């Protein structure tokens, strides 16, 4: 248990006078794949935002012993891509922003892996919903941040892409990374925790 990088102790979250999360505790260590499940509206997305440090809890404590700024990558319902820029420019920017030096060939390898090589120089606004999601997954796998926090990563993706992506997750976890997701599907691949 001493391998934990993040500890949530008795977390509570109140939003617009409503208790959304009540006394929730969770510890995550590297090498774990965790799926947080629960009915719609139980605060799964809010919990992921708490873990990522976007928001802070109303009560309870979150402690972490890694620098989340460097190690965490979050993909929410919005994919964090600039509509006006091409897929390549978006990826380049996020690599620059994370101070990672990765060659163009690795970027195109990753695009080939997810089968959207032909969209390399298309503007994001011309991509479909699923393709935008794939572009954000490409960012995710290129950046190699150790902690992945993903909100409903499988929605909008087809079976083959999901298969390739789950392989990526397995590899990442085997490499000593950690994955925290919320999902209603493919739950048997993860350690499930109810919210």
């Amino acid at each position, binding site marked *: 248990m001493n391998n934990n990088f993040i500890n949530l102790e008795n977390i509570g979250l109140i939003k617009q006078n409503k208790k959304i999360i009540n006394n929730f505790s969770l510890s995550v260590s590297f090498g774990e794949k965790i799926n947080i499940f629960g009915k719609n509206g139980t605060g799964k997305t809010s919990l992921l935002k708490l873990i990522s440090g*976007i928001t802070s809890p109303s009560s309870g404590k979150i402690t972490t012993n890694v620098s989340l*700024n460097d190690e965490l990558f979050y993909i929410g319902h919005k994919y*964090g891509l600039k509509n*006006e820029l091409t897929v390549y420019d978006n990826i380049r920017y996020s690599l620059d922003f994370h*101070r990672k030096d990765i060659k163009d060939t690795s970027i195109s390898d990753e695009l080939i892996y997810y089968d959207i090589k032909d969209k390399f120089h298309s503007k994001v606004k011309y991509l479909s919903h699923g393709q935008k999601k794939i572009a954000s997954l490409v960012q995710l796998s290129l950046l190699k941040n150790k902690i992945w926090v993903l909100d409903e990563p499988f929605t909008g993706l087809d079976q083959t892409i999901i298969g390739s992506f789950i392989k990526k997750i397995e590899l990442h976890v085997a490499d000593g990374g950690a994955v925290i997701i919320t999902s209603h599907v493919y739950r048997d691949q993860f350690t499930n925790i109810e919210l």
Partner: protein
Amino acid sequence: MIKVFFSVILNDMRVILNSGTKIFMPIVYLSLILIFFSISLANTTIGGYDKILPQIIWLSCLLVSLLNMETLFKEDYEDGTLEGLIINSHTLEINVLAKIISYWLFTIIPLVIVGFFANYLLTSNIGASLVLLMSLLLGTLTISLIGSIAAALTLSIKGNNLLLSTIVLPMDIPVLIFGTSSVYNAASGVNYDSELLFLLLLLVLFLIISPFASALGLRNSLD
């Protein structure tokens, strides 16, 4: 940190240049205001259009940059890049400053340059036009810094433009006063140093306050 600062500026530049309207809309607005003013003032008996023109340009630049202010963080908020910025920034304040500066560089500066040329062409007073340029450069950056605080605070509110303008109004007034009076002084051949220094003072003041206040506002808006 410096590298990240410049990568934020460059990325915003790409977004602004690719969208096109963000550069040209302010210029179109400014030209419209100038044209409408000249038409509507044509029949009045004021001592001459060129005497009030610098002030009109100053006021128009202020209004146009106010109109645009809400877009500063809006797009980032809607496409989710703001979340990434908050999570993965070592110092969010520096990156917020980078966003404000790129906004100013690529949407306000073209406007200011057009304002300068318009004033020079219509009054052919190069001295006063240069003072106008100088005071606009200082003033609009201050206005952008003030506006970013309000834009960050009102980010999650729908139809935030009204609230934003209300918050910004009292803080913009000193900038407007010193900006317009420096131009007026220059046009009437009086010393204008103190006005420009005051604008510089306001700029430094908000350069210090604004990144912190905006970063705080952004964090709160994503709650």
